[in-house]
């Protein structure tokens, strides 16, 4: 776990990471995901990579990237290099790891599904092998009713019994309930957090799973980052990308993170089938997702049936079928 970071990871941290060690993050002129993407392309044209920007003599290379990102700005960001020392050290002491898109350890599902829109950095704690196991993404609102919560717990526990990894966002409400359902039945769980990774990694409720290798917590955001609505939205696509299929348990109509995350999948990304909970009388949010192509969750009863939902060669018959359904 204390394996040394690659020079590419270090460079990516300097260019895009806030490297928060204090309570309040300072305003820094970090590269946006778009700017970093353009810089990577320029470096690629120059047969270079981000690592070359942190070699002992990078002056010329920095100059050659000037039209993409000004030399002054690059030098200012790369000049933060000392800061990496204490910050990385503190993450590693807390069993946190970080990886960048070019790292072979970066989750393959993210690079293959998101390409260079994948988060430039992924921070985490726990066994990263779990990130390669696919699984079921369970999403839903923070303030769901008791039925929805019971259902979330049930699905989590079923996923565990079927040996399917449960991927969720770690927020209170549906996320945590589904994760707990899986964890209590001895299943594998991946939590994709929008904030507070460092606190979650120390939280004693997570300790057992992290130590046993049955829980992996990840975040595209600095382990010390505080809550931010934009981040919470962004991490939705990571949740869907890590899983093979998604299940929406409850959602508002036309607003909120659950809605926009699912809508984005159905309208644009199509990382895998999106299911919605089959509830008597339906709900405006879930019904609207169905009209966009979401499938009705088939309510598998046995582990075999549950696994079949993930068997791409024999998709479970769920009607009405959406014309826009894309399997992987």
């Amino acid at each position: 776990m204390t394996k040394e970071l690659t020079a590419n990871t270090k460079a990516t941290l300097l260019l895009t990471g806030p490297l928060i060690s204090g309570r309040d993050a300072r305003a820094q002129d970090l590269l946006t995901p778009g700017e970093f993407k353009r810089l990577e392309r320029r470096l690629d044209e120059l047969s270079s990579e981000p690592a070359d920007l942190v070699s002992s003599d990078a002056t010329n290379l920095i100059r050659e990237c000037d039209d993409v990102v000004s030399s002054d700005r690059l030098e200012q960001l790369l000049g933060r290099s000392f800061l990496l020392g204490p910050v990385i050290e503190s993450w590693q002491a807390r069993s946190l790891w970080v990886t960048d898109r070019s790292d072979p350890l970066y989750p393959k599902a993210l690079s293959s599904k998101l390409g260079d829109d994948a988060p430039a950095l992924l921070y985490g704690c726990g066994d990263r092998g779990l990130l390669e196991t696919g699984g079921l993404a369970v999403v839903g609102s923070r303030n769901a009713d008791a039925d929805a919560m019971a259902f979330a717990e049930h699905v989590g526990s079923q996923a565990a019994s079927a040996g399917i990894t449960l991927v969720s966002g770690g927020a209170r409400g549906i996320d945590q309930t589904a994760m707990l359902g899986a964890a209590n039945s001895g299943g594998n769980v991946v939590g994709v957090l929008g904030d507070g990774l460092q606190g979650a990694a120390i939280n004693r409720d997570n300790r057992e799973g992290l130590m046993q290798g049955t829980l992996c917590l990840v975040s595209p955001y600095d382990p010390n980052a505080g809550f931010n609505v934009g981040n919470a939205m962004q991490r939705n696509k990571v949740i869907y990308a890590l899983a093979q299929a998604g299940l929406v348990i409850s959602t508002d109509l036309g607003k909120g993170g659950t809605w926009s995350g699912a809508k984005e999948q159905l309208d644009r990304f199509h990382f895998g089938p999106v299911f919605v909970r089959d509830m008597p009388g339906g709900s405006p949010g879930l019904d609207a997702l169905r009209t966009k192509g979401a499938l009705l969750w088939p309510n598998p009863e046995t582990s075999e049936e549950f696994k079949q939902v993930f068997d791409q060669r024999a998709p479970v018959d769920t009607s009405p079928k959406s014309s826009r359904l894309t399997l992987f």
Partner: protein
Amino acid sequence: MKFDPRRALELLREGSGSSTAEFRAGQEEAINHIVDGRGRLLVVQKTGWGKSFVYFIATKLLRESGAGPALLVSPLLALMRNQIAAAERMGVRAATINSDNQDEWAEIEKRVANNEVDILLISPERLANERFREEVLSSVGAQISLLVVDEAHCISDWGHDFRPHYRLVERIVRALPANLRLLATTATANSRVLEDLHEVLGPDLEVSVGELSRDSLTLQTIRLPNQTERLAWLADRLDELEGHGIIYTLTVRDAYQVADWLKSRGFAVEAYTGDSGDLRESLENALLNNQVKALVATTALGMGYDKPDLAFVIHYQTPGSVVAYYQQVGRAGRALESAYGVLLSGAEEGDINDWFIGSAFPSMHEVSEVINALEDEKNGLSLYEILSRVNISMGRVQKTIQLLSLESPAPLVKQGSKWQLTASKLSSEFWDRAERLTSLRREEQQQMQDYVDIPFGQHMAFLVKALDGDTSVVLPPKLPELETTARVDTIMAAEEFLDRVNVPIKSRKKWPMGGLPNSSLKGTIAAQHQANDGRALCHWGGAGWGSLVQDGKYRDGHFSDDLVEACVRLIKNWNPDPAPTWVTAVPSLNHPALVPEFANRLASALGLPFHPVVTQTTERPEQKTMENSSFQAGNIHGSVAISTASVPPGPVFLVDDMVDSGWTMTITAWLLRSSGSGPVWPLALASAGSGQ
């Protein structure tokens, strides 16, 4: 950045205050290397060579070309005043951040933000401090242009000088990208240390190594097993030796004892230890300005101390390793034609070095106790909460927590004021390393014993060879061998001195943190119920009366009349005021007569009545098995009772055989005073308080 040799020389001359100064071999190249940003550099040069000129001049040149400030990590900040003064002469603005100047941090941070600081000096311990990381490093860190790691041998496991926080420095260095300028410096690095540094600092590390031999030093070793002989030898030789020097002892207790002895013989000497606190600077200056003949010091007077005309370094006991010894003795004769480095070897040094070696790491028991206590508490525990749950001394708990928290990944981390378990178990590598380092320390200890036994004239070559240096350049000693024995009358005087030594017992002013277990007593002990400061006749197991007390307690079951007489003399010199009018004793159910019987004889010798008013009511585990305040105080409380009806109102001597934590005395005194006695003066035969 382009190196300007003319400007560099100009700065050297400003800094050294000499208009004709020239760079020493290697200095200019090193500065050039750093300024040009040609990669990481390790400079291995003996103390006095001028490593500080390298980083101060490099810093100044970098600053003049618009770069950010430098950060220097050194364990020796307190001793860098000379170097900082030189830096200021060349216009380098230095600021130090340490645990003693927290109220200045905000100001220094502001100065850094305003670009008014050129080099920031911190200790490695700062890097582990949450507040420093959050409030200072988070802003300053983004501008650092050069990192200097002083005493870089500490990064290596094979470095003689195990400083736990250098594990942190090592990991920080590993996390740094190549674009940060990095200079590592040390005075001593044998091949193994160099290998480690290559591994940590990277394969492209440039190394600049100087010569090890010190031609001005005449080295000598003398075995004198008894403390009396060594004290006498020091007194005899100090009369003859020219100039001013340092006498090193292994323990704080010995530093004070040796200094007291030499003072009693009329020498102008002072003790210098980790306990010297605010006096340290004035003591260093007293030696620099030749106001004292010598400082009697522990290693607290460490690596960075620079007095070019130091004429002798004498060791009262053998240090644990060649590197430690070379560093200490190498302080003599830097700018003199000749100087003495004499090592006295005593019988007790083996035990002391064993203790240092044995206590460097926590035991498996200590680690599992602390981890188990934390396992039981989901929300973590503060240091004091841990102490109330584990029967381990505060020092050992702190050491355990510190070493565990410096692991990576760490099994525990501090979150706010509480220690909390992480998602990682302590790796078995921790124990492997502890074992490896312990056996290395044993080898080093043996190597120093070999050194003691070699004949006069061969010592420097032995040291240079042990440090993997070039022995072909070693010259023979310039000074004659010193007399190896002491005069008989001086030895007798030293014996008398040791018999008169006694140990103060500090009275406790506060109940244990969190309150006395099972009672409502907490916070400050009411002044009228506190014990007064007392005295112990000797250190448990120490020179002087130590062995007689030990025999009385464990062999004879009876303390001899010599000890009664010694206590009478002690009391005469001490002269406590108000003078006690009666004597009482701390009883024990295990040895009911031992202490009261002795106290009774002492009372008769003093012409005072003996009233055995204190009784032990319930059997408790022996107090010495209680390892920290919570447990110690809790063990006594409720087990001691006073026959209140017979407590006389006057001041009283409270006699016990041993005093360690002082809780027995504190609680018994509290009970006596609550029962109407006058002031309580504790008197013990031996103090087992750690003098280490």
